[in-house]
């Protein structure tokens, strides 16, 4: 099942975001973009080059950028603001809360360089709390696409989504999971493999690790279902409740603080629907460190092998 995924390396999700913006800009002159001196890193420079009059350079001033974006959005523009996830959310949080969420303004907020996979720059530029922060904004839709295909499609949908949206993007190139014709719907998770013994639920770059873990488990005779929750909020209750009922065991894996990200949100749904054994795989109460992305991911246990260890632990508990 899981072996059917080739997982060939594709573009970074931040690059797909930049390309989607250019497409949007071409078809809709209402689309505007704000940057805070990171346009080459977030790939908004592609839009800036193509549509300079609709590109707003805010300097290194993320809080100001968020409120300017909110002003643009409240005046009928389809406004995107982008920076590293750590900066746009942390520096702009008050503005996101008051000018965007509380005011009901449909601003589109994109945070790149999320998680710890940015590598060498280290914790000040990493974002292990962005899912938590974004989900705590009432009314926000929170999206975390797994690959370039998902990002491209979901950015374009987000543009026309009636509410505020946060999109989580990564720095490094990631495996392509989806074919070019895959359909995505905001709020609907995607079941990638069938499975009866347990379910691996994930988002972003950990989905590929879950697929690899599922293939390894399959070789041991364990049948693992894999679900990509590209939309974290609103969460897909049906796909979770069904997995809980049918497999009776769920492991959530995420490149985020384990006690405030996707896992706790899945757990709430499980508790409210079909309670079952759950385990949580993520970053434990710390800020990681510098290193090559693959070294950092390995040290902080964000690999398929680590996911498989947690999966076996969950299964052992299920068997009692």
């Amino acid at each position, binding site marked *: 099942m899981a072996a059917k995924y080739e997982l060939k390396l594709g573009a970074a999700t931040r690059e797909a975001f930049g390309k989607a913006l250019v497409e949007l800009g071409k078809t809709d002159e209402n689309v505007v973009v704000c*940057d805070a*001196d*990171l*346009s*080459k*890193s977030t790939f908004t*420079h592609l839009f800036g080059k193509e549509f300079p009059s609709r590109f707003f*350079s*805010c*300097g*290194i*001033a993320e*809080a*100001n950028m968020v409120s300017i974006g909110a002003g643009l959005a409240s005046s009928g523009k389809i406004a995107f603001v982008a920076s590293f996830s*750590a*900066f746009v959310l*942390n*520096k702009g949080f008050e503005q996101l809360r008051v000018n965007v969420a509380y005011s009901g303004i449909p601003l589109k907020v994109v945070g790149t360089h999320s998680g710890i996979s940015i590598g*060498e*720059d*280290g*914790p*000040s*530029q990493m974002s292990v709390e962005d899912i938590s922060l974004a989900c705590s904004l009432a009314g926000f839709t929170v999206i975390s696409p797994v690959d370039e295909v998902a990002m491209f499609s979901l950015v374009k949908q987000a543009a026309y989504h009636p509410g505020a949206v946060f999109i989580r993007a990564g720095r490094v190139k990631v495996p392509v999971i989806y074919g070019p014709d895959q359909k995505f719907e905001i709020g609907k998770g995607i079941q990638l493999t069938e499975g009866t013994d347990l379910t691996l639920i994930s988002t972003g770059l950990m989905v590929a690790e879950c697929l690899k873990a599922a293939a390894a488990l399959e070789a041991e005779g364990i049948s693992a279902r894999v679900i990509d929750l590209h939309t974290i909020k609103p969460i897909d209750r049906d796909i979770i409740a069904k997995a809980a009922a049918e497999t009776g065991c769920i492991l959530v894996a995420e490149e985020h603080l384990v006690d405030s990200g996707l896992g706790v949100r899945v757990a709430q749904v499980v508790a409210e629907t079909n309670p079952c054994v759950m385990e949580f795989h993520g970053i434990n109460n710390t*800020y990681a*460190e*510098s*290193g*090559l992305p693959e*070294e*950092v991911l390995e*040290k902080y246990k964000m690999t398929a092998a680590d996911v498989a260890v947690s999966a076996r632990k969950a299964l052992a508990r299920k068997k009692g």
Partner: protein
Amino acid sequence: MTRTSDLSELQAMARTVRRDIIEMIGAAKSGHPGGSLSAVEILVTLYFDVMKHDPANPAWPQRDRFILSKGHAAPVLYSVMAESGYTPKDQLNTLRRIGSIYQGHPDRRFIPALEASTGSLGVGLSLGLGMAEAAKLDKSPSRTYVVLGDGEIQEGQIWEAAMYAGFHKVDNIVAILDNNRIQLDGWVKDIMAIEPLAEKWAAFGWHVIEVDGHDIVALQAAFAEAEATKGKPSILIAHTVKGKGVSFMENNPKYHGVAPTKEEVELALKEIG
């Protein structure tokens, strides 16, 4: 090296620090050479002449405080700290590797002698104000030095700090603006112009000293003037060249955050001498 006011010794140290920076970032294959090289004379003058500190006793309560608010220039700070004797010189080339004390941005978890973990721009001046106020409460002679980037001062918090310092007459803090005119995506004047600088800071109640940021004698005089200025915070607007000392990096926005190749490292080391 022990502290000295001797110009030729300080200039020799500046060359050593430039070599360290190029070698470290070259070995790491990532990092920020431009803004490290522009701040070399500023940090050398502070660490080896102006600041009162004791590498053998980093927790000495009356030490002067140093904050590299533009934390991406970590290599210049790591070099002066290692050359001062705080941290091992022979590990400088582990910069940015997993487990290294020389993290991508200054990280107190790995180097406790650092006054601040930095890397998110815009916060260092406020942090320094807290340290300066604490020194006043403790009747300590400790002074606080904060190095800011010119792109960095686009952050609103910098101006909140500027207003506080002027209003509260925090005269034991010195800000040093590394005015190299380039930020991440290009020239400051094209992204969000910040001029007129001297007038802005003066309007916020600061004593403003404009100085050639690569002229050690001028920097020594400027720091002395700052120390002699009572009842006002001081800022050195240090006119610098991003990438200073390496011809192909000078005034070249590309080298904000791109490491030199092996060949470029050799070329750069030859130029620095």
